[in-house]
């Protein structure tokens, strides 16, 4: 352990003779740690961007037809004359909020940033198996992101057909949709490169002694996620090509005969099926939602194990459940399509698989709940976010049940109930897990700790506001208020009773924005001013803490290659002097 206690600056090994330029070191780096940081910063910016798009929408929803304050004047005349948002613009914002959040913020954060940085460290690998591919995957992602951002400035603006891009609306939409498709092809390609790398790394580069059942749960989560990305993304890529052809070459993959748009008969030869797009889209997009949640569960499991000072309860059950979850996620997709006209047999099939897939989530959550018992629970910031995750994910998951039964979905489909359901899993769920992960691994990345005080000032208001945003949405949904309404349901009689909630939600969203200030300050301040830490400030057991300094060695991560002797969470082992036994502690010797 002594090598690790030295100050990180002295730790940089001199064995690397070739001089690295700024470009190869920070921009076109092949070091997984640098790439991880690149991913993190880029996707955090996109997270903020996606949030800002939503804040503009929330203004319009609360005060339909009123000029947007502060930034309204900056918007172009074509989108918001006099600062008043047009419906076309609202739809662009909606589609891009969904797309940016899912594909350019959350997945890159969970997989690109956390996966890239932490996974090789946790398995004792010097780097990813294919460093060049890793670099390529970041730059392809960045290109895709750039294409999406540029799309806001093309004639007609960005894509405006929802993140789901249902044909024929998307096929007949403005040029932004073409950019969306091209951007998606880049983002998908990036994910494919990444997933090949992650799986190969996990399987091939595990340290000696690190058998599969000794992998930290986080690594399992990343491994299964990578399989989902690998196998579910290509169909959307194929569908993207088809939609691109429908748009630019007038093919009719998704276009039926005799369409009349705005009084004009469309030139398509016909014979296509709008439902085909939906099948291919949801074939990806349902596994995709587990891509959003599995790594989040992985982060939370690490943080919880560390802060209860005891092993996770039911680790094996969690692993098997995750595998089962991953496999099942490929055969539930049509629960998004119950209202497209489904016969009894097919709907029964998809309802049944949907109910079945809820069981592994219940098992994983139960295991985490049961883990708490008998622990010695520390309430630091990462732990607070993780504990909140459990409850928030619980609410989001439970509200998936009435949606999963086709008969109850009749009333709830495409209402704010659905918006409430999935935001509970992705926003207070996944985003909270991401916050937990940032607070937890920040010391490893920078060698400095983030402020606990600011962390708590970040946590409590965030928890409060985010619930004030999404809880009322269930009520709006029960009232039957549709989603994607430019005026927030203003003209519908059945929405009148819940219209007031729109204002409350929007105010809470601005509150949530303010609640992020302590985080942003903390984040940048701690990089320079945070308290310096040694290798293992949390007294954790997994390899990234016990075998590598903070930050890890620039090339190769570890001063010496670790050899693993035990499972990932040997906390409070009876008879040991410390309450944590490193994964690489020699057998039969005290940690």
């Amino acid at each position, binding site marked *: 352990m002594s090598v690790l206690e030295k100050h990180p600056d002295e730790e940089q090994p001199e064995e690397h003779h070739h001089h690295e330029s700024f470009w190869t070191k920070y921009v076109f780096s092949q070091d997984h740690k640098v790439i991880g940081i690149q991913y993190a910063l880029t996707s955090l910016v996109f997270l903020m961007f996606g949030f800002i798009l939503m804040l503009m929408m929330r203004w319009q929803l609360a005060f339909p037809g009123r000029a947007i304050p502060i930034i309204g004047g900056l918007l172009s005349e074509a989108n918001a004359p006099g600062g008043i948002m047009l419906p076309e613009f609202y739809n662009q914002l909606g589609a891009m909020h969904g797309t940016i959040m899912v594909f350019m913020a959350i997945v890159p954060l969970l997989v690109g940033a956390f996966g890239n940085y932490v996974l090789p460290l946790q398995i004792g*690998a*010097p*780097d*990813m*198996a*294919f*460093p060049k*591919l890793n670099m390529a995957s970041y730059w392809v992602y960045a290109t895709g992101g750039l294409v999406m951002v540029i799309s806001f400035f093309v004639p007609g603006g960005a894509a405006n057909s929802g993140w789901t891009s249902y044909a024929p609306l998307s096929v007949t939409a403005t040029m932004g949709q073409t950019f969306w498709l091209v951007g998606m092809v880049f983002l998908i390609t990036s994910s*494919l490169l990444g*997933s*090949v*790398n992650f*799986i*190969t790394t996990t*399987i*091939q*580069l595990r340290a000696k002694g690190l058998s599969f059942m000794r992998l930290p749960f986080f690594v399992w989560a990343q491994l299964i996620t990578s399989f989902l990305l*690998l*196998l*579910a*993304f*290509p*169909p959307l*890529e*194929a*569908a993207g*090509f*088809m939609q691109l*052809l429908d748009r630019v*070459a*007038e*093919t*009719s*993959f998704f276009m039926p005969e005799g369409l009349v748009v705005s009084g004009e008969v469309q030139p*398509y*030869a016909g*014979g*296509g*099926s709008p439902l*085909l797009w939906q*099948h*291919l889209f949801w*074939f990806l997009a349902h596994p995709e939602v587990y891509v959003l949640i599995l790594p989040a569960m992985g982060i939370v499991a690490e943080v919880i194990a560390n802060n209860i000072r005891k092993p996770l309860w039911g680790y094996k059950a969690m692993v098997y459940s995750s595998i089962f979850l991953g496999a099942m996620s490929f055969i539930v997709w049509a629960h998004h399509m119950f209202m497209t006209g489904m016969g009894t047999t097919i709907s029964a099939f998809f309802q049944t698989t949907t109910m079945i897939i809820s069981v592994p989530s219940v098992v994983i959550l139960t295991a985490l709940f049961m883990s708490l018992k008998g622990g010695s629970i520390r309430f630091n910031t990462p732990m607070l976010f993780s504990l909140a995750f459990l409850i928030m994910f619980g609410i989001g998951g439970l509200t998936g049940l009435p949606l999963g039964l086709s008969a109850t979905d009749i009333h709830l489909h495409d209402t704010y109930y659905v918006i409430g359901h999935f935001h509970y899993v992705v926003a207070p769920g996944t985003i909270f897990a991401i916050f937990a992960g940032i607070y937890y691994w920040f010391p490893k990345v920078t060698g400095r700790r983030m402020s606990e005080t600011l962390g708590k000032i970040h946590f409590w208001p965030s928890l409060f506001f985010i619930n004030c945003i999404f809880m009322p949405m269930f009520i709006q949904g029960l009232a039957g208020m549709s989603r994607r309404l430019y005026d927030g349901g203003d003209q519908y009689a059945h929405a009148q009773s819940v219209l007031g909630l729109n204002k409350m939600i929007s105010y809470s969203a601005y509150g949530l924005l303010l609640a992020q200030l302590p985080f942003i300050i903390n984040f940048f301040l701690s990089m320079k001013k945070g308290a310096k830490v040694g290798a293992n400030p949390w007294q954790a057991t997994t390899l990234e803490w016990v075998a590598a300094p903070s930050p890890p060695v620039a*090339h*190769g*991560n*570890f001063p010496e*290659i670790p050899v693993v002797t035990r499972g990932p969470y040997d906390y409070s082992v009876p008879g040991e002097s410390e309450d944590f036994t490193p994964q690489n502690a020699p057998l039969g010797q005290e940690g």
Partner: protein
Amino acid sequence: MEIPYTVAERPDTGLYNAKLGIWLFLASEVMLFGALFSALILLRTGADYWPHGADKLNVPLATVNTFVLIASSVTVVMAWASLRLKEFGKAKMYLWATFACGLGFMVIKAIEYGSKFSHGITPATDNFYATYFLLTGLHGLHVVGGMVVFAYFLGPGAKMWRTEPERYTNRIETCGLYWHFVDLVWIFLFPTLYLL
């Protein structure tokens, strides 16, 4: 610190990294083409009328192309076998043959496409042609991609044979796996599009 198992096999999995990597990549390719085949099945089942491929497409040309492609598959494995026998010259010859086959395939494809376009037939004509152009076009892109890679390993990439012959051999093996997969896709494309 070097990344382990770039050349040697990891004892417990019996694989070197790139081998696993390429198979994973091919798995994703299976799903990519799978989606297109799925679309073809769905569109064809839902269509009122779907032409018989042989009536619309040039079967003799496609048959020739099938031979060209399976010939190219055998030349790649021969190249790999030659490398394992340390016969670099022979391997180079086989790789050139593979490249030539790829080129031949694309030339024939271009002739096929050209005759369609000259008759005013485009992907927009109907869904039969739309699926035909999309599937063969995407497949053609894969062929071109393979050719680029072979060109690289015949040109600048060939230097590696002198420094790390084993690694070079592995690289040809993985490229070969990809190339066989492209061949395999064609083996299914050919009957489904041209013969049924």
